[in-house]
């Protein structure tokens, strides 16, 4: 009886992300390189999760799959109740544009565009008008605390911390359901790294779902739940008492 109710609830509301025994195998000529080896995991909206593990353990690969940049070789993967393995390339692009924001270790800003234009880009692919794009981009940049006078600067005129703020503003502009950050502090000094982490914590307080990939324990401590990854598998999970 109890199990029946539980099942019913589960049927009514699937978790936002549901991954079931997903594998990612790279083929290098004859050699198979399994980067992800059977990972299952569920993420609810509003969670702040850290994925931690040594270099080469498959963290980035996992993030790319969860972020719909890549499809798993096998397994089941639902995002917002949609079967991602069956989705077309165009659909994946639309999902990334609409529901997902990325922040990378190397910032990955467009070098020849100003901060404002960089932040606008996802809005451009969403087909928004120029006015709307600029309005949202300014709002987004203000939210991450970039001074207005820097809006027209190109990435090479900004510090690492400022660049990562621009990247976060860009991830936020289409009001995504979830933000993935792959070693967002990896290229930063401790102080600006801490500032970036503060922004993430603030975002989570406002109800944003966050997945933070890192290999540093103290970075992972910001999250509510830490998933340890090793050799392409989940090693253990721990909940952090806030």
């Amino acid at each position, binding site marked *: 009886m109890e199990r029946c109710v539980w099942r019913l609830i589960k049927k009514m509301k699937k978790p936002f992300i549901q991954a079931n025994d997903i594998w990612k195998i790279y083929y290098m000529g004859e050699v198979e390189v399994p980067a992800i080896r059977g990972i299952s995991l569920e993420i609810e909206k509003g969670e702040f999760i850290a994925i931690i593990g040594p270099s080469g353990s498959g963290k980035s690969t996992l993030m790319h799959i969860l972020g719909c940049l890549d499809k798993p070789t096998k397994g089941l993967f639902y995002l917002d109740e949609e079967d991602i393995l069956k989705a077309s390339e165009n659909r994946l692009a639309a999902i*990334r544009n609409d529901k997902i924001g990325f922040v990378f270790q190397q910032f990955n800003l467009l070098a020849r565009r100003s901060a404002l234009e960089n932040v606008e880009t996802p809005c451009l692919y969403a087909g928004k008008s120029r006015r709307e794009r600029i309005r949202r981009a300014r709002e987004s940049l203000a939210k991450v605390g970039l001074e207005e006078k820097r809006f027209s600067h190109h990435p090479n005129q900004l510090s690492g911390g400022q660049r990562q703020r621009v990247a976060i503003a860009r991830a936020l502009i289409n009001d995504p359901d979830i933000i993935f950050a792959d070693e967002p502090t990896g290229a930063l000094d401790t102080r600006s790294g801490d500032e970036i982490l503060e922004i993430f914590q603030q975002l989570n307080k406002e109800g944003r779902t966050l997945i933070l990939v890192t290999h540093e324990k103290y970075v992972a401590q910001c999250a509510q739940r830490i998933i340890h990854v090793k050799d392409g598998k989940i090693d253990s999970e721990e909940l952090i008492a806030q």
Partner: protein
Amino acid sequence: MIASELAKVALQNLMINKLRSFLSMLGIIIGVTAVIAIISIGQGATEMIQETISSLGSELITISPGYRGGWGGRAARTAGGIFTLELGEELRKKSPNVAQLVPSIQSGGLLKYGENNYQASIVATASGYENIFNHTIAEGRFLIAEDVDNCRKVVVLGSNVARELFGNQNPLGKKITIQMGQGRFIFEVVGVLESKGQVMFFNFDNQVYIPVTTMMKRMTGSKYVNSYSAQATDSEEAIKQVEFLLAKKLEDPDLYNVTSQEEILETIQQVSSTMILMLAGIAGISLLVGGIGIMNIMLVSVTERTREIGIRKALGAKKKDILIQFLIEALVMSMVGGAVGLVLGWAVSVLVSRYGGWTPTLSMFSVVVGIGFSSAVGLVFGIYPAMKAAKLNPVEALRYE
């Protein structure tokens, strides 16, 4: 809306690497310049030739001896000894659409007056020739019927000849010596023609005119003339009538040729348009080479910007967004090249036309060809690199260093 945005981005990208963009466009620029210049110069020159030919009168018909090709042991030669004065008279009288018809014999001779002498073409003909060829008399008169009837030794000079022999003197009434072969003949100048200028390879101003009978009876003793020139009221009908009469008289159709000015015009038009097309085709090949240059630079650009493509895809760019971005870049490059080529080609044809002496024409056709071809080249050669960019896997593109 995205397309206009992407066009702006494409333009900005081209401006970042100005020298490189220019060098990539060079092939297209040269190709379009050549196409535009060749078409415009060709049309201008053809129109000028047509105009001068038309100035001879479009209802002009020439009846000349046929050319017999060498075959089966016979030597190739021009048929001779068939056109008599009587035949000419008969053709004129029996063809209702022939208004005027004059015989002519072309020959050359040395003209002398005092110390001056001049080597001129001598045309032996009859009264009416001046009307058929639209000549205007500057001084005196042209040959008249009495000159021909009485085999008078009178001569009408072309403007060049008159100037060379007489300078500023009045030539009318003066006696000149014409030396032809072994014979020397004294002629009286009765008229001078207005200058007509060069008509293709032929200069009327270097000619002198004497009565055809004088040439035949007093100078050469020949019974035959070289050809007839006729003025028709309807050249198509006139040709039919003349050909019918000649066929009855001469039986062998190889012995004569009847051509109208219109036919000559048509032939020139055909020949020149074939030439223009051929040259434009060659110029088109350089457009093709230009296209390959654009494809090359676009492929380089796609490789260089692999990471950018990865970023854009991660942010939600669809395949078609990337495709359009790179295609627009190729298109902008080829169309800017085409526009520059259009301007340059026009400049070249204006310059050349100034030397050639015709009015330069920029036809809609060449503008369409220039712009159309260059954008087609941009599309054709831009699509492959653009597709390559669009197909990139986002994760691999992001990993690219």
